[in-house]
């Protein structure tokens, strides 16, 4: 959003001046400098209103003893210092233990989900690069999960994963004869894998779309030259496709990581308000701590900790990838 907003306003600055403008170069120069900022202003204002203000309020709440007694007027809640943070990270007590477990579950889940989404998306994009009959149909088909409303899609998955009447067990157990009895997918340990399947199904078309766009920018003659030199498909992918997709992948992996780590909709629709322990992702965990047990202060503290973690990871990631790019540029 912001990047496009920055890219366009700079355009007039490099545009050739028209004769009319040349008469008053100083004034129009100042205007030219002001224009991009002016154009940014509405977005900045909205950003402030929609993101920054609630974020600051959330940080303030995390230092308050905010329970049901004060939700009507949370400004009146007594300050509690770092108490909420102490409760959240006391890993010897159940609240901290549960948060840590949920955090580790989310880390593992995110690595697997992002990895699979990226792999499937890239593989499909490369596969569909060649022109063949039915390519358009497949491209459309692959985008269906991305186009469907999340709620409708996930609730359908929830029906399919039901133990007694679901399609998954009907196929796995009744038709293929796997397992002595039908498995549970929505409760117990399997819930983790259920969540992963749905998350990957939902997430990979975005990777597919992004990589497909990235592939359009690779000049065809590079492949032709490589083919003339005797490079096979794998060598071409390794030495041309993947390095050329580097900058696309940097953004893609970051975005997928942030989306997956914060995903609330999928577990909420799949499991309801209380997710099974094995699939207790951190966003749902924080929701439950805040809105189900009405510990709004502790919930806010958990959110702030999550925000800090994501900021640090994003910062380190951007630092590492930009450094990598600089050295590769040299």
């Amino acid at each position, binding site marked *: 959003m912001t990047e496009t907003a920055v890219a366009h306003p700079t355009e007039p600055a490099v545009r050739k001046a028209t004769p009319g403008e040349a008469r008053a170069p100083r004034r129009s120069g100042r205007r030219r400098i002001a224009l991009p900022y*002016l154009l940014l202003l*509405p977005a900045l204002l909205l950003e402030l209103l929609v993101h920054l203000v609630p974020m600051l309020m959330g940080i303030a709440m995390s230092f308050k003893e905010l329970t049901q007694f004060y939700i009507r007027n949370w400004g009146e809640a007594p300050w509690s210092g770092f108490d909420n943070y102490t409760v959240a990270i006391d890993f010897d007590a159940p609240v901290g233990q549960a948060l840590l477990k949920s955090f580790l579950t989310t880390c593992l889940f995110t690595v697997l989900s992002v990895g699979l989404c990226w792999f499937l998306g890239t593989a499909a994009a490369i596969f569909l690069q060649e022109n063949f009959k039915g390519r358009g149909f497949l491209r459309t088909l692959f985008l269906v999960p991305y186009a469907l409303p999340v709620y409708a899609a996930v609730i359908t998955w929830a029906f399919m994963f039901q*133990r007694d009447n679901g399609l998954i067990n009907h196929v796995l157990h009744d038709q293929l004869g796997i397992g002595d009895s039908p498995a549970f997918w929505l409760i*117990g340990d399997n819930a983790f894998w259920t969540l992963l399947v749905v998350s990957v199904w939902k997430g990979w078309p975005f990777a597919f779309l992004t990589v497909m766009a990235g592939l359009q920018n690779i000049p065809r003659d590079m492949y032709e030259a490589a083919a003339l030199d005797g490079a096979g498909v794998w060598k071409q992918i390794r030495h041309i496709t993947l390095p050329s997709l580097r900058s696309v992948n940097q953004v893609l992996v970051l975005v997928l990581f942030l989306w997956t780590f914060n995903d609330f909709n999928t577990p909420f629709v799949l499991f309801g308000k209380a997710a099974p322990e094995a699939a207790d992702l951190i966003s749902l965990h924080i929701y439950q701590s805040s*809105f189900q047990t009405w510990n709004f202060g502790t919930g806010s503290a958990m959110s702030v900790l999550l925000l800090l973690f994501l900021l640090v990871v994003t910062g380190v990631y951007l630092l590492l990838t930009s450094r990598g790019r600089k050295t590769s540029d040299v």
Partner: protein
Amino acid sequence: MRRVRAAVTGVVTLSLAFTATACGGGEGSESAPKTLTYWASNQGASLEVDKKVLQPELDQFEKETGIKVKLEVIPWSDLLNRILTATTSGQGPDILNIGNTWSASLQSTGALLPWDAKNLEAIGGKDRFVDSALGSTGVPGQDPAAVPLYSMAYALYYNKQMFKDAGIAKPPTTWDEVTAAGKKLSKNGKSGIGVEGSNLSNNIHQVFVLGKQHGADFFTADGKPDFTSDGAVAAVKQYVDLMAVQKIVAPGNAEYAQNQSLSDFAKNKTGMVLWQTPSQTFSSQGMGPEEWGVAPAPVPSGKPGQGAQTNSMVAGINLAVFKNTKNLDGALKFVKYMTSDEEQIVLNKAYGSVPPVKSAQKDPGFAAPSLAVIRDTLATSAAALPQVPEESQFETVVGTAVKELFADAAAGRPVTTESVKAKLEKAQQQMPKK
């Protein structure tokens, strides 16, 4: 340049307009004094059914008083969150239905109008209501936060044909008899009794009653969480053991939360269910009233009664008024109308519940055997869930603990006194610290 200037003006105007709309919401609060907004909880088979039941009554109210009532029926799963949001923003309805077990929790937010003597007088006085229903309207000793609207209680529903086929002569009255009957019924892919293992509120209702039977309350007399007492642990274990040890509950029930156990019952797959007023659901699933029977919910021994022989929680719906209503007079008129004898009879008949208003309860329409069991239970052997501010949190954390224990049982993992105690310990730690 002119084009650029025009574009800038356009963008700025647009963004200002956008911001203005974003800030200018909440026209609901500006409602004219001649209207009321009413959030009804979903009582019937669907939201549409509720609208069909309620709208004619609201129209009648408008005819009598000139006050128009805007109705919104809210599904159970959303109701508590919607109320919380309304409480935080101050932009709620004028009148709303609440689950009676939440009364004390919502009372503590200070968002609901207290029913002091004056307000109660405006709707005909406290004495109009049955005592057990009044016990679920807020913390004892404080002015009630709501007034009772519909009353319900748990009873044991049994499938007559399945009982006949299994050679069971009469419905069980004690837990031992339930187990014995359940074992006779559990064969050929059928099971003895149904539970809703993933439904947190239902789990709470069941273990609360069993807790009473084991002499435990889940809260101390001064309102502190007490989830790990021997009685509470025994109660939760007894309930989960119906699946883990007695094997009279099908493992699939562990993931039920959408009344699937009632469908199983109606499809002759389950012999018994413990439920509140399911007759409408049974008939919508194609099960005629002659196919099922009803008996008081089981007790440890003998007959239901007070104390350890408690066999149900006091279930029901209360009617509350948002404190910041701009039409208090109209809201009081509406509550008076909804708790009048005529409306109580019409609405409770439509929903298969029992009126919490004494005079309306005398209507012969509520003398049918299925409702008589519930009426007697409410009068003699039902107990209100703890009326403490943390009740709604208790439903969440202990309900979740029971759900996880059912998941263990379904997966064939042992459910021991220690594992039950550990889960309840964890639940207790999640409760807000005072």
